[in-house]
């Protein structure tokens, strides 16, 4: 356990050197709370990117990938907030995680069901929820455009 503690403290110190203004303890993100002064201190160093090889978020492109049609107003509103949170995510880059196995989730067994098809009893209710249905098709507009 001491090993982990020492590892994190070391990471925080190198982060401090990188960013300049910083609280020594690794409880940095934990001390975010309502009080404005501490929040501003947090924000002032979080605006520096800690991983220069990653491009900052391009909200328009992300919106296209995520299939959400944002208005220009929304893009303008979201961009700084998203940037701020992604920067905050960046603090993980300075933690020494070599030889730590990633966890997919908490420990659970993998319970597979038998590969036997079953009939769903409430098909009508399921079909009834489809916005645009013309028996027996779920109707969609054209998939490909000419340009």
């Amino acid at each position, binding site marked *: 356990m001491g090993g982990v503690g020492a590892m994190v403290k070391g990471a925080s110190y190198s982060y401090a050197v990188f960013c300049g203004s910083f609280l020594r303890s690794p409880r940095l993100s934990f001390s975010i709370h309502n009080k404005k002064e501490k929040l501003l201190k947090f924000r002032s160093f979080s605006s520096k990117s800690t991983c220069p090889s990653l491009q900052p978020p391009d909200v328009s492109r992300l919106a296209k990938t995520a299939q959400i*049609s944002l208005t220009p107003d929304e893009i303008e509103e979201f961009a700084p907030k998203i940037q701020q949170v992604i920067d905050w995510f960046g603090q*993980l880059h300075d933690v020494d995680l070599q030889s730590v196995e*990633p966890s997919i989730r908490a420990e*659970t067994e993998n319970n597979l069901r038998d590969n036997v098809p079953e009939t769903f009893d409430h098909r009508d209710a399921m079909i*009834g929820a489809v*916005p645009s249905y013309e028996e027996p098709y779920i109707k969609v507009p*054209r998939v490909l455009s000419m340009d």
Partner: protein
Amino acid sequence: MILTLQTPRPLSRLPRFLPFSTNASITLNQSQPATCTSPPPPHSQILSTRHSLLSRQFSAADLLRSHLNRLNLTEPHLRSFLHLPDPSDLLAQADSLDRRIAAGEDVGPLAGVLVAVKDNICTADMPSTGGSRILEGYRPPFDATAVKRAKELGAIVVGKTNLDEFGMGSTTEGSAFQVTANPWDLSRVPGGSSGGSAAAVSARQCVVSLGSDTGGSVRQPASFCGVVGLKPTYGRVSRFGLMAYASSLDTIGCFGSSVADAGILLHAISGHDRFDATSSNQIPKFISQDVPNFLSHFVSASSFESKPLKGLRVGLIRETIGDGVDAGVISAIHSAASHFEELGCSVNEVSLPSFSLGLPAYYILASSESSSNLSRYDGIRYGNQVYADELDSLYGSSRANGFGSEVKMRILMGTYALSAGYYDAYYKRAQQVRTIIRNSFTEALNQNDILISPAAPSPAYKIGEKKNDPLAMYAGDIMTVNVNLAGLPALVLPCGFVEGGTAGLPIGLQMIGAAFGEEELLRVGHIFEQTLENCRFVPPIIAEDIAS
């Protein structure tokens, strides 16, 4: 553009108390939180309902009418519910139960118990919107397994409760439909994302309720509303029918006005489900076999020994009582620690050095997984569609129209973190941090039987306080997210008050147990609750109405 955040309603013209509670039964001292004159500890409403019904003291219809009456009076002020069924449907269920009791038939352990269900949990006979316009009016063709099990045991689902859209948020202000008020102070939030479920139990609009907890969404509202909130071990309760937010973190949890009630409800809905591959096969569905043993944990305080928790090792997490936590919260937790010592426990401070990394790791994992999970809302097979001539535009417009701002932002952040080439930088690193945190909990729980901390760094916020500041809102989850990363069970129960509102604002104590250790948590929590003096957690809005 849909305005998804409701502007706070002008509250200045609302009466300070409702007509049926003209005087608070508690004398208020302006300079300190409410103190009580030795009220009795909470008893299990579920067990007393069963007793009243089987002894014919009350009928199920009587109990239903009394709750509905209170619900109707409080609901215009609280707005806990997104959907309430026709009262005659509920009455029909109650009447049918009364007939079966009269005929001497066996009835389930939840017979006649009114359960509210968070609206991201599917119910076949009521709309399930997830708090989102994209599912406005959607009726699932099935019940979630947890709902199905509760109904099989006789529970009556009294309505669907308000939440932050798809579980994303910590105040319930993120609902596309309405803002729920905290029963302790109508100008404050009930917490989130299961704010409606917490408020409904707090105001006794129902007996118990179901919520979901991905990063604290049952525990933090329990703290804010002065009720018991129980998050089970990941895999204890089937997630089938819970609208997925972050699949590796989501759990269905329970609210009650006593530890016994939250525990009995959890017991009823737990167990392996073949429709959820992550539900554990190893813990038996002990519903029928072990009920007498399980209920024996909830005996009355008069049968406790003098030091009923002697030998229990309690670890107070040092990182949760330092910088950034309200002084009133720290004081309440220290009082709770003293109470544990009086009960015979040894309380020590324990340090979890990686504690602070959990918050960014959680938000990376949760936004990434949610960006994938919410891709199913495309306006094609269910939900609201905005028609367009081309498929891509139909997707884009339906989703833009249907999702609120917070949901959109989290999807975009998740899309970024999972972009080609970025997986190692964000998602994988967050999973590695997850391993560190799991290991640190395992180590701490080897040396302690339970760990304790506040459930939140502060009492309930004012409505609108965290509206435009995502990071400030995320910061409030610091006490709860690590438990989800580790998949452990946790119980929150009200342990004290701080100043605010008209009778103080409740503060919750979080108790964290080992994986699948819910029974121990409930045993300890029950003893703590039953021996806590001078504290009764009934919000002033209903104080007069509640018989003690």
